[in-house]
């Protein structure tokens, strides 16, 4: 029972109030942890609402919270309407196939996927898939490389200049090069992945592998002397040393790097999608900007908020994974 309560520790103050246990203190606790952020949020919404009405752009006034809320409802409506269109499409297709089979029972029929354009939520999904793919590719390269250069100072001296040179390069600078390379190399008549997907994925990887690489190297090279002595005393083989001592000890540093990388990957993805035309959130923002309708700014704000919220969720996800994987459960994780 107590473990259950511990896991849901935000409920504790409420339960204590009902129990009658120091209600005043509990109330202060609730106000501090929930009330203050809420007041902060409301104050921000108020300032935004007033400020927005005073900014006049050629596309109408800057969208305030009310318009953004309205546009988010419109986006949900559009999504439902598109799903209905999809149903109708499949019905028509089935009718056509049935007719074909009637005429010739041996005819080959195909079930094709819906041809309509992706809705806002489809685009969110595409963005998430692309960022995870790019992030995983970056991590798979960065973590082993980081471990190697952290353990070997010669290797570190050799590779460090390259890291410092390529780290600051913006994704928008990589994009034309990546596009050209992908166009030239990834040629096939029936590709499994769209070229725009590969281009976005590679750009995300190129930009997000640096924090993981550097943090892994730092974490690995900073292992406490005691642990290294243990390894030498037990005369552990190189691989066992890495798996049993190095990796567990450097988890906090690695995860710091991974969290930074994921944040950067998500930011880079939006920019990369705008130019590579991968059908995700970046393309949504770009298309809305090109549309220039009076709803466009409101919709772009919805996308901005969605991007921020998803970035927050991704970060929290990394935190949960870190808690699971870390050996030191008592370390404070923010």
């Amino acid at each position, binding site marked *: 029972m107590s473990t259950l309560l511990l896991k849901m520790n935000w409920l504790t103050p409420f339960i204590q109030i009902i129990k009658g246990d120091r209600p005043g203190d509990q109330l202060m606790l609730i106000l501090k942890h929930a009330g203050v952020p809420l007041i902060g949020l409301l104050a921000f919404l108020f300032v935004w609402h007033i400020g927005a009405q005073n900014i006049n752009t*050629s*596309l109408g006034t800057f969208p305030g919270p009310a318009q953004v809320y309205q546009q988010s409802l419109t986006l949900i409506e*559009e999504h439902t309407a598109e799903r209905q269109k999809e149903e109708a499409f*499949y*019905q*028509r297709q*089935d*009718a*056509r*196939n*049935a*007719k074909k089979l*009637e005429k010739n029972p041996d005819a080959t029929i*195909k*079930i*094709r*996927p*819906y*041809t*309509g*354009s*992706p809705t806002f939520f*489809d685009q969110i*999904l*595409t963005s998430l*898939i692309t960022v995870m*793919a790019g992030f995983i590719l970056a991590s798979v390269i960065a973590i082993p490389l980081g471990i190697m250069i952290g353990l070997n100072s010669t290797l570190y001296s050799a590779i460090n200049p390259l890291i410092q040179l390529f780290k600051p390069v913006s994704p928008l600078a990589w994009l034309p090069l990546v596009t050209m390379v992908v*166009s030239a190399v990834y040629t096939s008549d029936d*590709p*499994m*992945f*769209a*070229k*725009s*997907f590969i281009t976005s994925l590679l750009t995300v990887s190129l930009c997000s592998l640096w924090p993981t690489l550097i943090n892994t190297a730092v974490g690995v090279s900073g292992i406490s002397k005691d642990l290294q002595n243990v390894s030498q005393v037990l005369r552990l083989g190189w691989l066992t040393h890495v798996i049993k001592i190095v990796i567990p000890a450097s988890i906090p540093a690695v995860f710091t790097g991974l969290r930074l990388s994921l944040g950067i990957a998500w930011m880079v993805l939006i920019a990369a999608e705008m*130019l590579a*035309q991968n*059908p995700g959130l970046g393309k949504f923002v*770009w*298309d*809305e*900007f*090109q*549309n*220039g*309708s*009076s709803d*466009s700014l409101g*919709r772009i704000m919805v996308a901005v908020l969605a991007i921020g919220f998803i970035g927050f969720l991704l970060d929290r996800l990394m935190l949960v994974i870190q808690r699971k994987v870390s050996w030191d459960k008592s370390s404070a994780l923010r």
Partner: protein
Amino acid sequence: MSKNTLNTLIGRRSLIRKTLMTFGTAAAAGLLNLSVAQASIGEPEKEDLKFGFIKLTDMAPLAIAYEKGFFEDEGLYVTLEAQANWKVLLDRVIDGQLDGAHMLAGQPLGATIGFGTQAHIITAFSMDLNGNAITVSNEIWEQMKPHIPKDADGKPVHPIKADYLKPVVEKYKAEGKPFNMGMVFPVSTHNYELRYWLAAGGIKPGYYAPHKGDTSGKLDADALLSVTPPPQMPATLEAGTIYGYCVGEPWNQQAVFKGIGVPVVTDYEIWKNNPEKVFGVSSKWAEDYPNTHKRVVKAMIRAAKWLDENNNANRPEAVKILSQPNYVGADYEVIANSMTGSFEYEKGDKRDVPDFNVFFRYNATYPYYSDAIWYLTQMRRWGQIPDQKPDSWYMDIAKKVYRPDIYAEAAQSLIDDGVMDASDFPDFATEEGFREPQTHFIDGITYDGRQPNDYLKQFKIGLKNDETL
């Protein structure tokens, strides 16, 4: 993961549901007259197609062919995707990411002769006539206004010639300020129309010298023309980077609505019923998938007819479709003006221009050789074709790129199916691909497609005969 893979997975998931629906709709299927008789053209070789477009109102035939099910009637499953700009669109058609696209009439020609990326692009369908206008910033309009003659009501007399812009350009030149204007692509109709209009008023729009490596088009120019993608033009005008632009709708009406510019002339007034966009595919794609290509043309002919049907009665519905964010996306009111036959010049000065967008009337969909040759002559006029070419060269290129033979087969199939009438089309037995010599140009010069070199001689500004830079 590509959208197709994702959708295939979802497709398999709902297979059970669909099989159940199939039994339900099988009975109704017999009553549905879905597919048109496919006797004349064989089954399509490729059924899943992806077409690109730019956010302009004249992509309407593609949108209508999709939304009204004309593509599906031909057994084609088409996805329409907006592209970032004309260059990306052309590159993606060339490297096969797109099966075909909404293209500027000059793009297949420019690509085939090697100006810009070289590729053999062909077209068998002209998407529309007219549809562009030239807009200037509020500042420039105020400076032009005193020079323009007014009618009895005090409104400017139309068409407004570039002669009235000339004093403004001279003033900027005297002050040492470059007079920048925008157009959408070096081989775009907008580029040639803007240059034609400027040159008719005595303003030099600059030359290209690709043989010397200069493809900026600004040699010896009074007005400097540069490329901007259409949806970004109002923003660039507002920012003051350019003083005017030539672009298709809705970007001219957008400028009026947002109060950042004034359209001064439409291309209908520069050249009445000029060819504007075409549906372009790579020649290899057309060779590999001939039936598919003809079916695409069939669907688009039906869409074009629908757009002009009953004296433009369907246009409001078309505008509603176009204002969806995945097509053109601009507000309904902004698109409605030009599509329903009126055009707002200065704010409050709305005039009737019933043929601002023509999709089917006047044989708008037929790919005339004379249209192709006009673009080639203008490419020569401004130096994109650096040397003199004989008349036969123009004819050969036009025959290579414009394919009225494919159009004729598609049209014949529609007639055989009973969907359209022979009177909707030119007489294919006698049609040679040349319009009658055209006289409605803003400077009064007559264009005869059979004599391109003689045509070029009539211009005061521009390369002619064997002049090179």
